């Protein structure tokens, strides 16, 4: 059965190459167009340290590179977290925000905007809100000691997210309609427009830690796709493994949502596309999902900032692409809850 691993190695190589080419195009695209060849020369000049201080260099290196980096990191993070969650919940139709991470992050950010906090403080509030929401869901679900821990987790996630949604609505209602309300609305739509080196620096460690943990446990995570009884009878400490996977996926998702706002569909649709190509085995699925996610998000962001005179929020584009893909997925689904 060497056929699949060999083929998936080629798939990963091709996906990595496509991502590099797309990044060269993305770095050149915009209101100040630069050819991919020039982009490559500029990137190379930074590698060799022989930098020419020109406008093109500033545009590529100072303005577009952080944005391209954030889009790739967020795409990789959401798709990896989605793939992990889909294994964990034995369901190809769950997204990384199933346990309330997006709602928690949104409430944190909205609260930050409401009290007039600075930019960095809003991002920190969003990150903390996301982590706190998932922690609350985990604690409540563990206290319930129900017969089926997975269904309990999902239902607790839905309940907590709806309470957090009520909190967001309350703050929107109370917010100043001329300054705060538009800021809240735009944050909730999601955007990469604010991406800078600070965002890259805050994303890299969170996404790296999450990916390293998931990759280290990748083969074992396959066992979570069995029923609770089967996995435990095979000798897996499912409670502990599940908690570790949820922690890693939540870290990556919360860090992403904190810098880019809520961008739906990526964590739901991209893992499915990866599964179609390399199969469900998680040590192959995870790198494929991360690469596909980075490519998908970068393509979306590049289109969203170049297709029209004003930026189209990327969440709108992912929904336009995600909805038909999801319906196709439902039509082909063999088994659902």
């Amino acid at each position, binding site marked *: *059965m060497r*056929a*699949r691993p060999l083929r998936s190695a080629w798939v990963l190589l091709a996906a990595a190459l496509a991502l590099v080419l797309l990044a060269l195009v993305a770095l050149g695209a915009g209101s100040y167009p630069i050819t991919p060849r020039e982009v490559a020369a500029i990137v190379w000049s930074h590698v060799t340290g022989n930098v020419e201080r020109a406008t093109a260099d500033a545009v590529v290196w100072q303005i577009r590179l952080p944005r391209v980096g954030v889009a790739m990191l967020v795409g990789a993070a959401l798709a990896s977290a989605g793939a992990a969650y889909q*294994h964990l919940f*034995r*369901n*190809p139709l769950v997204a990384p925000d199933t346990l309330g991470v997006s709602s928690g992050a949104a409430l944190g950010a909205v609260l930050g905007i409401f009290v007039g906090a600075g930019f960095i403080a809003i991002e920190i509030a969003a990150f903390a809100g996301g982590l706190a929401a998932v922690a609350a869901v985990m604690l409540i679900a563990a206290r319930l000691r129900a*017969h089926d821990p997975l269904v309990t987790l999902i239902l607790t996630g839905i309940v907590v997210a709806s309470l957090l949604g009520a909190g967001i609505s309350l703050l929107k209602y109370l917010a100043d309609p001329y300054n705060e309300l538009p800021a809240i609305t735009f944050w909730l739509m999601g955007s990469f427009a604010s991406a800078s080196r600070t965002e890259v620096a805050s994303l890299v460690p969170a996404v790296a830690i999450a990916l390293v943990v998931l990759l*280290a*446990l*990748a*083969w*074992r995570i*396959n*066992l979570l*796709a*069995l*029923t609770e*009884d*089967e996995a*435990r*009878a*095979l*000798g*897996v*400490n499912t409670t502990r493994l599940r908690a570790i996977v949820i922690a890693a996926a939540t870290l990556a998702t919360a860090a992403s949502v904190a810098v880019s706002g809520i961008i739906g569909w990526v964590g739901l649709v991209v893992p499915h596309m990866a*599964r179609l190509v390399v*199969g*469900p*085995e998680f*040590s192959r699925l995870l790198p494929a999902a991360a690469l596909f996610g980075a490519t998908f998000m970068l393509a979306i962001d590049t289109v969203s900032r170049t297709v029209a005179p004003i930026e189209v929020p990327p969440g709108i584009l992912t929904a336009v692409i995600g909805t038909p893909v999801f319906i196709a997925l439902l039509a082909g689904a*063999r*088994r659902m809850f």
Partner: protein
Amino acid sequence: MLDVRDLAFGFGARRVGSDVTFSLAPAETLAVLGGNGAGKTTLFRTLLGLLPPLAGTLSLDGAALGELSPRERARSLAYVPQQHVPAFGFTVLEAVLMGRVSLIDTFARPGHDDYAAAHDALATLSIEALAARPVTEISGGERQLAMIARALAQQAKVLVLDEPTASLDFGNRARVLDEIDRLRDHGLTILFSTHEPDQALAHADRALLLAEGRVLALDTVERALSADNIERLYGTPVRLVRVGDRRFACVPSR
């Protein structure tokens, strides 16, 4: 090798069964019979450590089962679920490899030995041809054999099968039961539950009859599965008809 003494089992305050005592000898097949809700599955889940026992003792080769880690327990006891419902299309080989998890380090992947054991298990059940097929695209009977292969790859001495033929057609039932016979001949100790007295008579050495969570009979199959006992167990009169030398058919006589 497996000793169960005065066991009470259930879910917390809800006691499903009690005073269950039996032991399994090496290379023996014990069939567990009982009506719906008699507690067969709950008993098995308790033996496998999926539910804490409410009272009594469970030991394996003299060691208390409760003191073993999930990993150690999995090396001694393998479980074949009533029906494996796959969430994703893992290949049969990938699914069988998962049986090796108790023998693989936490951060490791299956190595050469693990692949060898998985292929051996597939060969034992003559389903090597299925190795690359997704578990979502094979028949229920093939999937049940794949789950038995997974339990074999686990290399435990005791195999626990929960109604292994419940969802299978007539031909697949016979096939799975024949494989169970062969595994016993290979020296495995087997515990399986069934709703068919015929199956126990043909494929088990002893039978344990469970009625409302208590042991109604525990004896060789011929003695435990008398027409009287079967009638008491299921509440319907039956007749045992001899078929050939050593086989019986159990038919309702009303």
